C-alpha cells in the first residue's frame, strides 16, 4: 500500500506536533495501512535508540562516579618516608636527629589522627544493627522487621510512605535510621535517628537510647559533623553502662576532637 504520509509527517506525529485534524487523518490511515505502520515503527525504534544512547551516556557517568567513590572509600595510600644516609657524625648531630625524630613521630601521630576522618571512622566502626527478640511489637513494627531482616531496606520506606513521622514508634525510627545507613544515605538516617532521640527527650523515656546514640554518632561522622559526633562519643564513653561504650576508643575520641578544631 502506498503512503500518503512522508517521513516528515510521521515524525511530526511521533513528536506530537500534528494538528488535531491531521492527527485523526493520520491515525485513520494508520489503521488500514500496514506499510505506514511499519515505517512508523521503524522511526519510533530509531527515536528510542537515540534516547537509549542518552541513557547509556548517563549510566556510564553515574557508574564511573559510583565506582570511583567506592574505591576511594577502600583506598589507603601509604606514606613514603625517605631513607637516611649513614654517616659518621658528632653527638650533637644525634641530639638533633633525636629531636627531629620526636617531631616526626609527633607529626606522624597527628597525621594518623587527621587521616582518620569522619567517613573513614564510620567505615571502621559501622556494624549492622541486630534486632533483639522482644515481645509486644505493634503490627507495623512486625511489618518492618521482616523487611529489615531480609535486607529489603528500600521496601521499608515504601511501607511507611503514607504514614506521618509522628506516628512512628521508637523501634520503627531506629530500624528506618539503620535501613537508611545500609542504603548509604546518612542524611535520611539523620532524620529518623534524631526524631527517636527527640521523642525520648520530650517524653522522658529512653527507648533504644543507646542504639540511637551510637548510630547517630556514626551518622554524624559520615556527614563530617564532628562537633555533634564528638558530643555523642563523649556521652557513650563516659557512661560505664552504655551498650556501645567499647565501640569507640580513646584514640577515636581524640581524633574526632582534633577534627572539631578545624
Amino acid at each position, binding site marked *: 500500500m502506498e503512503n500518503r504520509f512522508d*517521513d*516528515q509527517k510521521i*515524525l511530526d506525529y511521533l*513528536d506530537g506536533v500534528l494538528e488535531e485534524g491531521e492527527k485523526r487523518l493520520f491515525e485513520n490511515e494508520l489503521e488500514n495501512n500496514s506499510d505506514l505502520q511499519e515505517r512508523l*515503527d*521503524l*522511526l519510533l*525504534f*530509531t*527515536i*528510542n*535508540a*537515540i*534516547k*537509549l*544512547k*542518552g*541513557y*547509556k551516556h*548517563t*549510566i*556510564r*557517568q*553515574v*557508574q564511573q*562516579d*559510583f*565506582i570511583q567513590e567506592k574505591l576511594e572509600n577502600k583506598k589507603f595510600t601509604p606514606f613514603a618516608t625517605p631513607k637516611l644516609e649513614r654517616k659518621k657524625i658528632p653527638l650533637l648531630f644525634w641530639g638533633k636527629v633525636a629531636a627531629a625524630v620526636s617531631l616526626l613521630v609527633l607529626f606522624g601521630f597527628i597525621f594518623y589522627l587527621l587521616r582518620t576522618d569522619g567517613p573513614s571512622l564510620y567505615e571502621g566502626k559501622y556494624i549492622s544493627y541486630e534486632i533483639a527478640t522482644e515481645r509486644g511489637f505493634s503490627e507495623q513494627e512486625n511489618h518492618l522487621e521482616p523487611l529489615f531482616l531480609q535486607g*529489603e*531496606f*528500600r*521496601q521499608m*520506606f*515504601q511501607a511507611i*510512605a503514607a504514614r506521618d513521622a509522628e506516628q512512628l514508634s521508637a523501634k520503627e525510627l531506629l530500624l528506618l535510621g539503620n*535501613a*537508611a545507613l545500609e*542504603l*548509604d*544515605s*546518612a*542524611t*535520611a538516617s539523620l*532524620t529518623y535517628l534524631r526524631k527517636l532521640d527527640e521523642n525520648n527527650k520530650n517524653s522522658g523515656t529512653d527507648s533504644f537510647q543507646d542504639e540511637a546514640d551510637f548510630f547517630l554518632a556514626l551518622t554524624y561522622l559520615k556527614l563530617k559533623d564532628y562537633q555533634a559526633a564528638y558530643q555523642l562519643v563523649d556521652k557513650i564513653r563516659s557512661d560505664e553502662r552504655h551498650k556501645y561504650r567499647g565501640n569507640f576508643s580513646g584514640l577515636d575520641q581524640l581524633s574526632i576532637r582534633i577534627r572539631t578544631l578545624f
Partner: protein
Amino acid sequence: MNKGKVWTDQEILDEISGANQINEAVRQIYLGYYEILENYVLQNNGSEADAADTIQETMLVFLNLIETGKYREEASIKSVLYGINRNLWLTTLRKRKSRENRHGIYEKEQVQVDYDVSKSLAEIEGYQLIMALFEKLGEKCKRILTLFYYEDFSMKEIAEAEEFSSEQVVRNKKFKCMKQLTDQLEGNRNLYEMVRNALKDGK
C-alpha cells in the same frame, strides 16, 4: 526531590518516566542495588570488571523497559534488576568458551527468562546497531537529536542553545539528521534486516 533522602521504587520510576532527574534516579538505583548485582556476578565466576560491564547493560535494559512502557509496576525494581542482570551474565558466560564455567552455572540454576525482559534484550541489540550509525553522524546532528529526544528540549530551546536563527531551521535540520540516520540504515541491507528483526522480536 530531596537528594539526601532514600527514594522509593515509585519515586525512582516517576522521575525516570517523567525525564526529570534521571541522573539522580540512576544514582539511587546504583546506591541501592549495585552491591547485590555485583555479588551475583562475583559469586558466579565473574570479576569486578565483568560485574561493572554487566550492571551497565542491566541498567540500560531496565531503563528501556520503563521507556517503552513494558515495566510492570507490581514487580519491585530489585527483582527486575536481578532478573535482567542474571540473564545478561548467563548469556555472557554462554558466549565464553569455558565449558567448566558454563556447566557450573547451568547445573546450579534453571534460567527463567522473563518474557518482557527477553524481548527488551532483543530490542537492545537492535538499538545498539542504530546507536553505531548515530555515532557516524556529524556533531551538530548528534547534539540536536540528543537534545530533542533525550534532554526533552523544545525546538526554541535548541535554537537558542545551538545558535540557530529560528525554530523552523532547527526543525528542518532535525529532519535532515533523522533522514541521514534512516538512509544509513536502509543503505545497509543486512543491518536493516537485523533491526527489523529486533523490532519484530521486541513486539
